[in-house]
Each structure stands twice: as structure tokens, then as C-alpha cells.
């Protein structure tokens, strides 16, 4: 079954994905995403009744003792935005 994705659909997805798109980009992606979704529709042909994926290998329930250890240095972590950090915190524009 052919899956139609409109330019409006793409713009809506872009909002959900937090990506700025030009109108031109939206037109290209509408065509491409439509083709991709049409292709993956074929998954419906597989009988998966009662089947559940659990894990790749048989590894499960990995536990460890909760012992505090030194973590990364605050200065190191902030150095990619040094000009925007203050007193060990990152300063961003107000959200509300």
C-alpha cells in the first residue's frame, strides 16, 4: 500500500523532532519519507502473533552495589560552554 506523506505532515514531524526546515526541504522529504514508509509497510506481511522480542543475547538483570565514586570534573564538563557557565552551572535563556 502506498503511503502518502504531505508537506504539511513533514512540517508537523519537523516540529516534533525540533528541526528547522525550509519549504523546499519539506517538499523533498515528503517524497522520500513517503517512499520509506511505503517500503516498511511490508512488515505487516510477517506473522508475528504471540511473538515478543526480549534481548539480543541472554543477558538480563545486571546489578551492582550502589557505591559513590568520583565522576567527571565539573570544569571539564562545562568547558564546551565556558562563556555560558557561571558558578559551576550552565546559564541558558529563560524557559518560562
Amino acid at each position, binding site marked *: 500500500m502506498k503511503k502518502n506523506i504531505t508537506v504539511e505532515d*513533514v512540517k508537523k*514531524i*519537523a516540529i*516534533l*523532532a*525540533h*528541526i*528547522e*526546515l525550509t519549504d523546499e*526541504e519539506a517538499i*523533498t*522529504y515528503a517524497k*522520500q*519519507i513517503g*517512499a*520509506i*514508509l511505503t*517500503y*516498511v509497510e*511490508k*512488515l*505487516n*506481511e*510477517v506473522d*508475528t502473533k504471540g*511473538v*515478543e*522480542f*526480549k*534481548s*539480543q*543475547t*541472554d*543477558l538480563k538483570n*545486571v546489578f*551492582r552495589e550502589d557505591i559513590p565514586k568520583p565522576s*567527571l*570534573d565539573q570544569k*571539564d*564538563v562545562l*568547558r*564546551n*560552554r565556558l562563556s555560558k557557565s557561571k558558578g559551576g552551572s*550552565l546559564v*541558558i*535563556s*529563560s*524557559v518560562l
Partner: protein
Amino acid sequence: MKNLYELTVVEALKLLESREITSFELVTSCLNRIEEMEPTINAFIHISKESALEQAKAIDEKRAKGEKLGRLAGIPYSLKDVYNTKDLPTTAGSKVLEGYVSPYDATVQRKLQSKDAILIGKTNCDPFGFGSSTENSAYGITHNPIDTERVPGGSSGGSGAAVQYGGGLFSIGEDTGGSIRCPASFCGIVGLKPTYGRVSRYGSIAYASSYDTVGPMTKDVRDSALILEIIAGIDELDATTSNDPVPTYQSTLDTSLKGKRVGVVKEYLGEGVDSDVKDAILKAIEVYKELGCEIVEISLPNTEYAIAAYYVIGISEASSNLARMDGIRFGLDVNTNEWKEKIIKTRGEGFSPEEKRRVMVGTYALSAGYADKYYNKAQQVRAVLKQDMLKAFENVDILLTPTMPVTAPKIGENTDDPLKMWLMDAFTVTINPVGVPALSIPAGKDSNGMPIGMQLIGPHFGEDILYNFAYQYEQKVKE
């Protein structure tokens, strides 16, 4: 005598230990080779010339004093630029991480450094591993050193090209759906995608967390076995690593293959496979017969659905993993004061078309009302694929397939048609959802002289089996 950059790791270690060469000479040879090749190949995003030479000198001095050295002392290597390396830039091939300097080392880097190996540089790749050609990188296209008009494969294309031409003696790639095996195939080298959980992913920038694997790219099978012995094993920083003991893979390379069973997957030699590639695989089958193996035809009946399942899950996980690329803490810094605008613009400017496409399709596949139809259905198909694979291994020791249905395409040949590019990965993407290991090794050349790769697939944690089969083949065709 070979140029030093042409040596394998095992050969170089012998010469270093017998003091016939110094690490400084070896590193210098690789750096000169890089200088010679990079203007046409562009395999590297970052080259650590000074620190590599300094480290080499320090190791030579320690060796001269008779101090104890690590198992890879003085060997230059490269890392795909998805591995965090303290105090060095890490871009993942994406503009969105431009300027990012990591505050920590990935586990694989820490392990190699603890064995006194020398990081020579960080290699180019499709952004976040999104691609099979290294044409999508924000840091330029990488060319295939064997024919510079062709792609090196991807996404670890820089690593493939660097190992092929001698820019370091080995590289660590990252494989989510063939990103180690495809460039290994196109560049004529050996590339291992290990079992999921065999090598720690800590510090590897995530593409699809349930597929991602860390593996060696080397000139031959023995080098691959040696490097895996060093990088494999449990890591408390990656809860998905296995505590199964790491075998000494080199010790079983010589085991006889008499009476072993090789499964040939009939669906992987059908339509769409180049005749030269098919011929090469048929020849390899004859080699295994000569080695005393029994050949068994195997069917993986749901192969046709594997690509679709792979992509739905892979890009869903990618869209989630890439949510952190928001420009707030690191990477591309778009100048605007409004917080939401900053995120949207950072991603609009920082992501390439392939990144945008995958994040958007993944977002769609996970969105309310569609998650059952796409993501959950794909996970169920994944369970069916795993059943098929485990069933195959009840009858055979390994599976033998082409790595890629084609040899390296020309640059620009497939870039306009993303779906066609995705379909090229049919034999590699089917492996990651089920988590088994797979190895690509050279198996001859096509009529244009481009390398053909053959893929050996083993059961979970069966890397020792893969290396045994690969080494026996490699030695036999050398005769």
C-alpha cells in the same frame, strides 16, 4: 623490505620487540604516508601528529631501559570519530558537534592506551554512522584509496581507507548495520562486528543503542583477533557488556576445519548480487570444501523483511539518541537568545539531509498512534529474525555470504536515492538486530580490480569460530 606503514600489527610488534625498528620510525612512516595520501583521500578528521610522536619517543625510551610495556606498545592506530577522546575534538562526522571537545575517554580508547598503543588520528565517517559511503560527512567525502573515484564504503569509511593505505596499522570502527563490514569489504581489509555486548560501547556516540558494536578494522585476521582480545570484556560503564570470559582468539586460529559445517544462505546469492561477487563467494565455498568442510544450504526466509525491521528500529532509536544534540551544552553554538529557537536552529543548521531524514522518520515511527504499527511491529519481526538465525546455527557452525552485493560504487552514484542506498546493505543490516557476530574478509577482486568482501556470520559470542574459519581461508588462498 616493506615500508613500515605496510606492516601488520603482529609483524610490527616483532620488529619493535627485537629492536629492529623503533616506534618513532613506525609512527613517522605512518604520518608521512598520511601526509602523502590525505590530499586525495581525506580519511582523517583530526590528526594527532605531535602527541603521537611524543608518545612514540617515550615508549622507545622505556623499551631501551627495559621497562615493562603494554601488549600494543608503540603501535599507531586510528579511531572512528564517534569515540570520545579526552582533550581532543570528537565530531561523529556531524556539523552539530563542531567544536566539541570531550571531557572523557571512551572505554575502547582507555583500553588501547593502557596497552601503550598510540592514537595517530580520528577518522571520517557518515554523521552518527548514517550511511554506507562516507559521502554524508560534514568534513568532506572520503575517497577509496584503491580507486579514488569510488567510495570507501561506510559509515566507518575513513577507518577503512586509513587501514588500507597505511595511516596507522589498525583502526577501531563502529558497526550498527554494516558500518565496519561495508568499508572493510570495499577497501579490501578485515572488519569485525562483534557480538552485541562483547565490547563496551561506553563513550561511543550512540546511533542505535540496541545495535551498536565496537570492533577492529585490520589488514589481516590475526591482527583482528589480537585487537579483539584487548578491547573485549565486561565494563561497569556499559551494563550491556557480557561477563563471559574473553577467549585468546589467536590460540584457535590453527584448529582444523575438517568435518565442520558451512551454511550458505540461498537468499543471499540471488537477484541483485553482482556476478563477480557471486563468483567470488562460489570460489570461497570451494576453498572451504578443500579444507574439509561440509557445505549446507540454509534458508533465512524472512531476509526480505529484515531491512525494513532494521531501519524502523534503528532510526527510532536514533531519533531518541540524537535528541541530546540541542546546542545547549556542547557542539554547534547558534547565536540566538530564545531557548526553543536555539534548539530548532541548531538541529536545522547542524544536521545533514540524511540526519534530518532519519530523525524525522524515527520520530514519526515512535509518535502517538503509529508506534504499534511501526516500532512495535518491527520489534516482533526482530524476534522472528532471531529465531531464524538461532535455528540456522543448530545445523551449521557458520554462515557464509557476500558482505555487500556489489563492490565500491562511484562517488555520487547513489546519493539521490536514499532508499536504493539503504537496500545495498541487505546482508549486513540483518545481523545487528539479532546481535550475532560477523566478520568481513577479502575474497578476491572484481573485473575492475576492486575488492570483494565475504561475510562469515557466527552464533552469539562465537568470534573464536569466525576467526578460525577466516584464518584458515586466508592462509589457504595465500598458498
